[in-house]
């Protein structure tokens, strides 16, 4: 726990913001009276389901992105696959450059509506930061350290697992955190293709002109993003090996 005490300012500042925002919202939520229409979306049972749906959607997409992007990134740093690196990074680039709404709607044309399509859209959208950071993280490991590992008799695989990956961990986790934050925000768009999320609150609020729904959706998404960003930061601090700045 000693390292947390030496933690940088942002690790302490962010939760403050989260608490202020969270407490503010809860106070408002408890004091306000809801009309029947509003009750349908903002009643605690319904609201809880929406929040959980949003988190499930985000986490599912994240797990899949991590499972694809990190191994792919590692593969692309191996000497034999070096030539494919620009191609793969370009594809990932296209995934992120395409507007998220367009991407999700286009996918719907092809795969139909629902949770599965939403997840696929999010995955395509969030691959780039993790792929890019995995590649950069491994490439920035000092070549001399790798040469020393091979020179004393570590196999290629052992060098990767015991030397390259631990030293790349901070950069890779940074990519995962970026992807998570992007996903929390982008998951709101899934409402257009029939997957429930906090975006549903925002769209309903806009269409029916119910500012309470609109604001609740926006505040809750922001809160969620901040919390996940902060958790990611803490994990980064804990998982960074000692001796790596």
């Amino acid at each position, binding site marked *: 726990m000693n390292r947390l005490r030496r933690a940088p300012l942002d690790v302490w500042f962010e939760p403050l913001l989260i608490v202020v925002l969270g407490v503010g919202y809860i106070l408002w939520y408890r004091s306000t009276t809801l009309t029947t229409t509003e009750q349908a979306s903002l009643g605690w049972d319904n609201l809880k389901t929406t929040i959980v749906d949003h988190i499930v959607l985000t986490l599912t997409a994240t797990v899949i992105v991590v499972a694809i992007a990190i191994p792919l990134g590692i593969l692309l740093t191996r000497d034999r696959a070096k030539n494919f690196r620009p191609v793969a990074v370009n594809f990932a680039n296209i995934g992120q450059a395409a507007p998220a709404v367009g991407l999700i709607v286009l996918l719907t044309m092809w795969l139909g509506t629902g949770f599965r399509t939403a997840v696929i859209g999010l995955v395509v959208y969030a691959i780039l930061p993790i792929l890019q950071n995995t590649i950069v993280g491994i490439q920035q490991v000092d070549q*001399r*350290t790798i*040469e*020393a*590992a*091979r*020179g*004393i*008799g*570590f*196999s290629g695989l*052992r060098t990767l697992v*015991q*030397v390259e990956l*631990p*030293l790349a961990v901070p950069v890779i986790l940074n990519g995962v955190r970026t992807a998570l934050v992007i996903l929390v925000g982008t998951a709101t768009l899934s409402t257009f293709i029939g997957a429930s999320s906090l975006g549903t609150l925002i769209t309903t609020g806009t269409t029916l002109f119910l500012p309470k729904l609109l604001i609740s959706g926006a505040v809750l998404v922001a809160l969620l993003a901040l919390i996940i960003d902060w958790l990611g930061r803490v994990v980064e601090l804990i998982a960074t*090996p*000692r*001796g*790596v*700045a």
Partner: protein
Amino acid sequence: MTDNTTGERTVTGASIRLDGVVKQYKGQNKAAVQKIDLDIEAGHIVAFVGPSGCGKTTTLKMINRLIEPTEGRIFIGDRDVTGEDPDKLRQSIGYVIQSGGLFPHWSVAKNIGAIPRVLGWEAKKIDERTDYLLDLVGLDVADFRDRLPKDMSGGQQQRVGVARALAADPPVLLMDEPFGAVDPITRVRLQDSLIAIQHELAKTIVIVTHDFEEATKLGDKVLILSEGGHIEQYATPEEILAKPASPFVEEFIGSGATLAHLTLSRVKDVDHDPVVTAEVGDASQEVIARARAQGATWIVVINEHGRPRAWPSLDEVATKERITDYVDDRLPTVAPSSTLNDALDTMLAASQGGVLVTDGRGAVTGALTIATVMAVIRGQLSDARSGDGHVSYSAHTEGAAT
């Protein structure tokens, strides 16, 4: 591994033989190393030296096959290693690079135990080996065992690098410009430490350097290479200085060849002055009396291991009733294996007229003064001047200069 006893020390090293080894990179006309034949005796230090691009590092890396030779065979002992599994081969060869190449996320102990763990040693055996090696390379076990590389100086990291290379007790140690990134004083200490280790273990060591002086100091034999791995000369330092085999060698060793002999004379080859030692807590008057009886004007304060702490003058000693525990961290020391050149450098760097001579474990054995070094230089200069046909000032005939 060949274990044969020569004289009083047991040689644990193995011979290395390169037989027609060539390295040709694809798409390049000239070979990086053209057909090199080389025999390295077991238990010797051989230094590869030459200008950059001469193929010295390539040749070194072909021995442990970090670079695969295009042609030729490599033998370690009687074993042809050209077709062996490269990872297995490297586990049986120590390898040290500049700054040690330590894993920054591992403690010193974990770094040293890297290969023993791969080889499946028991934890207890690895611990014992780690402590032995730390002591061997001159680092305090309790202090350094759990340190991270970033919390050590360059010289200390380099020592750990050597310890890691020796962990699995390999017969052969390869070193790629190991002392290139440390300051001159630290470099001298590391060189002396390596000589002491070699003396104790008698491994076969191949060291790549671009510094001819370092090569002559460390190498039992020196291999001078020119572009394309062409062997210009492979001989003892004395032979190379006395009889350079080619104009290339002559130019490479430079015009300072006379003073280069200073790098051939070791501290142990010249007379040392005895020193009067005292321990912390001794009565000052008694120590002063003892020193006066031997005609000394200063004394050396040592710790319980005989390592020097300070060297106060008798006047300074007299200011305190007992010898204090003061530690002089600028104390100039050299090892018996240091060259006179090193000793001179150390004196100049410390602005002192002398240095303390310490043995392999750091215990003080005597002192060397600048006068002794100057006497050697004077002797060598007069040796060099007599008989080279040089006309002296007094023997010069007016108008004969051209």
